[in-house]
């Protein structure tokens, strides 16, 4: 029945798209609204899901809180500083997950043949995959992120300059862009490796988990890998070093702390190229 409701809503939207022919953003908004209405057909589930999604996100924050009931400083960081990292990471990740998280299901669309149906519609397949089953439940993730950030920011022991305040905003935006790029990039991998979703979760969800903690906890080579190979360190760690006025354990030059927007642009460009290449080489399974 859910499929039936969603299906009717989906085809209604598909019917509406060519008439109005909106741009990609308009199409995304229209599809997202359609899926939201479909989800609202099960109001009890939708509310419970949003609450539970928020609660699952809050569990990570609770874990940090619990860790610090057992020790005042861990790996040289205090609870407010780690919660600041949690808040910025969770906020960036939540925004990227709301907008692009369903690109992780590309492999499923390839296997079921539903991608073929998307290719014949006059809307970008990326928009369709990303808006697929858009659900208000994912907004639940914003709640613990914003809440914890609001709690942590005034407790940070730093002199608040306009530069620092701007950096907090900038790191959330670039962090979301980096995560967004990683969603699309790992989605594009599934054009080639249909079964890779299980493994690429370690970059998306794993990246979200990793960036909640200070890199001083992890082994040096591990930190190098998430700085230079998969640039997760630029989601919030490098800018946070500037905000918290801390030395870099890898000893990178100070400019690295301001590099997040450039890194985000590079990741997004790589993701766009990978997606286009994947789409160009896509061959239907014929099912």
């Amino acid at each position, binding site marked *: *029945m*859910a499929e039936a409701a969603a299906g009717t809503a989906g085809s209604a939207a598909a019917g509406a798209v060519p008439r109005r022919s909106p741009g990609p953003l308009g199409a995304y908004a229209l599809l997202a609204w359609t899926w939201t209405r479909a989800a609202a057909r*099960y109001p*009890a*589930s*939708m*509310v*419970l*899901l949003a*609450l*539970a*999604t928020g*609660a*699952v996100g809050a*569990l*990570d924050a*609770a*874990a940090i809180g*619990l*860790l610090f*009931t*057992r*020790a005042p*400083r*861990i*790996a040289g960081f205090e609870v407010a500083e780690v919660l600041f990292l949690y808040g910025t990471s969770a906020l960036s990740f939540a925004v990227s997950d709301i907008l692009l998280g369903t690109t992780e299901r590309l492999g499923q669309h390839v296997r079921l043949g539903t991608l073929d149906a998307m290719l014949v519609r006059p809307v970008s397949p990326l928009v369709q995959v990303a808006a697929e089953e858009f659900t208000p*439940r994912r907004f639940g993730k914003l709640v613990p992120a914003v809440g914890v950030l609001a709690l942590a920011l005034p407790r940070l022991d730093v002199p608040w300059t306009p530069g620092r305040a701007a950096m907090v905003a900038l790191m959330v935006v670039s962090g979301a862009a980096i995560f967004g790029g990683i969603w699309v990039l790992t989605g594009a991998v599934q054009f080639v490796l249909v*079964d*890779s*979703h*299980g*493994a690429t*979760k*370690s970059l998306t*969800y*794993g990246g979200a*988990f*990793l960036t909640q*903690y200070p890199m001083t*906890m*992890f*082994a040096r080579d*591990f930190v190098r890998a998430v700085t230079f190979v998969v640039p997760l360190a630029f989601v919030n760690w490098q800018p946070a070093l500037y905000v918290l006025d801390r030395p870099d354990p890898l000893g990178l030059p100070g400019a690295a702390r301001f590099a997040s927007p450039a890194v985000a642009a590079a990741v997004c460009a790589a993701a766009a190229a990978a997606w286009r290449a994947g789409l160009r080489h896509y061959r239907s399974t014929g099912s």
Partner: protein
Amino acid sequence: MSALPWVWWYGFRRHTAYPIGSLAEALTNTAFGFMRAYVLIALWHERPALGGYDATDAVTFCFLTQALIGPLQIFGGMELTERIRSGDVAIDLHRPVGLQGWWLADDLGRAAGSLALRGGPPLLAGALAFPFRWPGPAGTAAFAAAVLLGALVGFGLRYVVALGTFWLHDDRGLNAVTLVMSLFLSGMILPLVVLPGRLGALARALPWAAQIQVPADVFLGRRTGADLPAALAFQAAWAAALLAAGWLLTRAVRRRLVIHGG
């Protein structure tokens, strides 16, 4: 001969049919194992004997949770709910085998398949990269019993949640709420020995502890002598209680489905 061994076998076969997909999942479990292990090591660096664990115990615990995520299906869910939504469950109810027994056999087959493919990689990687604590032969046997009982408890919990679909018509909300409980109270997020005071005592008495914390304690050799039967009895009691609740709900569901029109 009963059909249930076959149901078990087909469950096992279905869940070992895509080994590459399972290994990909195991890779993610391993990656999370590493990240969580570093966090725990940092904590145990500050508090060396926290909760009676040493750092080696904590790291072993961490990789053990990652190895058991798949087999015990900590993230919840059961195929049965899809069949309730689509009405296919009417076929299940017509079978000459009870609904609960059928799905228990299927789920244990799934658990065995998942353990075979997803259990090893996180443990091996953890043992290679960090100081690790392996149990002796007796400990391994006790651990096998504890995992089996943990799987029964896991099934009992998920079956009760799945039957909730008959009333709510959609399992996702209920599933999501139980996911929060399951993640936190099983010891997935933090070992339950880290939880302070009453919260810790409560968490260690609830059924979720029977899924991860108890098998892990057995693995680490922290439940020996008279403590071991007590630990297994704790698991068995929760398994029995949950399976009994599932049995009662199954009876209620038979009437419910008729009202719903089948």
